[in-house]
């Protein structure tokens, strides 16, 4: 079996390890070769790899943004710490890690410390749900997409808790904006997802990707992609929808009072969410880890090829977000809500209707891919 997925790698490693151990300790072989133990160990290993990979990916994502933003702005971005600034964000993280931890006198203990931690944890939780390559969850989670979106929508709660408990007017306003914004943009996102579900016929992210083996959804569901991307921009709180952190009016928004490790949590979780958002777009609209069938098989048969293609797509999607950040100013609160409620929701409804119509006539406009409706 060719090693193609991360789960395979983890399983291979753990079974190999246990096999070697069983060889060394024959009396315990009955225990060590127990498939349940192998599975358990590989699950743990898988989790550890996932955690580390998502963290490192997030940090690389920050690096990617800084370098790319630099070029958009006619400068170079971080470049002197590590080769081409690769180590810059590790240095930032390490530094924030060892900064003095403090709490404003009037701040609430539980909210002040708990908020960022929960924000971080829930953002990390996403990566347990999102399949990065084939054989990731094997249908064990038939509603994985809904679960992912549920976890994604925890964030405003924790942002608001930490903003409220840091006892600062700017934080409070930022938190309130954040809550209003995220709630407003949940709806179009979910509706856009409905369009995808209509076409794919499943809530399982794995299945959705498999549906896109031959035709990616970005073509037929372009409207849904547009709505979903704009909604995701708002959910990630990136320019032009970064109102909660709007530097010019709200100092640093809801993390005004946070410094050191807790601020690092916020930063990291923000980019974790950005990564998760990009991954969701790739999963739902850009075919996940798959490549069109007319691409030579060499490209897909390499070890871990699925993951590599997936990450390439993810970074490209994120690059578009960076591009938008470099070109567009921030909108105002009321405009933001108006865009959300009065533009995106009708648009997403149209997208749903369109998707339903497409399913009904069993004909998808396809760009260069072989149509195979319903997989």
């Amino acid at each position, binding site marked *: 079996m060719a090693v193609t997925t991360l789960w395979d790698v983890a399983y291979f490693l753990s079974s190999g390890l246990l096999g070697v151990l069983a060889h060394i300790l024959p009396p315990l072989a009955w225990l060590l070769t127990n498939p349940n133990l192998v599975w358990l160990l590989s699950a743990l290993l898988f989790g550890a790899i996932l955690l580390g990979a998502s963290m490192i990916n997030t940090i690389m994502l920050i690096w990617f943004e800084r370098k*790319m933003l*630099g*070029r*958009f*702005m*006619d*400068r*170079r971005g971080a470049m002197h710490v590590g080769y081409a600034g690769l180590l810059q964000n590790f240095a930032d993280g390490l530094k924030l890690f060892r900064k003095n931890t403090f709490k404003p006198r009037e701040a609430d203990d539980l909210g002040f410390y708990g908020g960022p931690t929960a924000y971080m944890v829930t953002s990390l939780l996403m990566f347990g749900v999102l399949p990065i390559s084939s054989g990731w969850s094997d249908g064990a989670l038939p509603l994985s997409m809904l679960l992912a979106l549920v976890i994604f929508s925890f964030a405003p709660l924790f942002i608001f808790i930490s903003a409220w408990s840091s006892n600062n007017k700017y934080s409070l306003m930022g938190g309130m904006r954040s809550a209003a914004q995220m709630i407003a943009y949940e709806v179009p996102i979910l509706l856009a997802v409905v369009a995808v579900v209509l076409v794919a016929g499943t809530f399982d992210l794995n299945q959705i990707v498999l549906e896109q083996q031959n035709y990616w959804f970005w073509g037929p569901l372009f409207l849904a992609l547009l709505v979903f991307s704009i909604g995701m921009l708002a959910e990630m709180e990136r320019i032009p929808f970064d109102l909660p952190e709007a530097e010019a009016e709200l100092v640093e928004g809801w993390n005004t009072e946070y410094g050191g490790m807790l601020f690092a949590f916020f930063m990291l979780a923000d980019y974790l969410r950005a990564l998760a958002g990009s991954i969701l777009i790739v999963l739902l609209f850009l075919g996940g880890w798959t490549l069109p069938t007319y691409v030579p098989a060499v490209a897909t048969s390499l070890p871990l090829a699925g993951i590599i293609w997936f990450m390439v797509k993810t970074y490209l999607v994120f690059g578009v977000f960076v*591009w*938008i950040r*470099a*070109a*567009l100013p921030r909108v105002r609160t009321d405009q933001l809500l108006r865009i959300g409620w009065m533009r995106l929701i009708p648009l997403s409804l149209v997208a749903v209707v369109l998707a339903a119509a497409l399913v009904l006539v069993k004909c998808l406009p396809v760009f260069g891919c072989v149509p195979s409706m319903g997989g």
Partner: protein
Amino acid sequence: MAAEIEKKQNPSAESPTGAVLKPLATAARQFARSLIRPSTILYPFERLEDPKFRSEVAVESGRPIGVGEVWDNYRGVHALNVNTCISCNLCAFSCPDLCIEMVTVPGGDPKHPKKCPQIDYGKCSYCGFCSDACPEGCLTMTTKYELSTPNRKDMVYSPQKMFEQFQRKLPMNPIRLERPANEDAILLDAPLCIGCNACARDCPTNCITMLDIPKEAPKPGEKAAKRIWKEPVVNDSDCVRCGTCISVCPKECLFWGTHS
């Protein structure tokens, strides 16, 4: 007029919807342009003082980072040629921030020590008035600007330290000020003068000579020699108009004025 401007500058005013594409295109164009060489000077490695680098990124090159050759008149740290300094005090007098102090340097005679400027760069505002005022051109400004130090005391530059700057032969301000003609001159209120020689002794340019001038006609029966006094005469072409003579005159008989 206003509508005109608006129309001219904002062709998209008619159809604002979808106009986000234009800034996106502009940013993308900039991205493509700066992919090869962004406008960043990699400061510690590339410097605008470097003539070669400067001409490479000059405005003529089409991708301007600097405007090119003219950089040498930047007003940075002073360079002092201690050897030609005449201790005239003019730099200290002309300093608007009073950051120049005249300190004794070796080289003078014990009675009249040689004094050269010592500059406190924590107070200096780099206006260049001192180098404009320097009559001998020994105090000039170089292009050196890196002056960070963890120690406040290091910011006081002694004459020796500025002499080191001079010896490093950094590029110096090429634009020397043409000194316009000035009618001011040192005049003598002759009746008050006691002929003490203080002005001639302290004159940094030695342009004052004490001439024997008969103060008054000898009285009958007196020897003429007793009534002869020495009086300073200023050589205006050599005088740098530093005013040292005025400040040392015990009788305040020298003053500024015009010959006319």
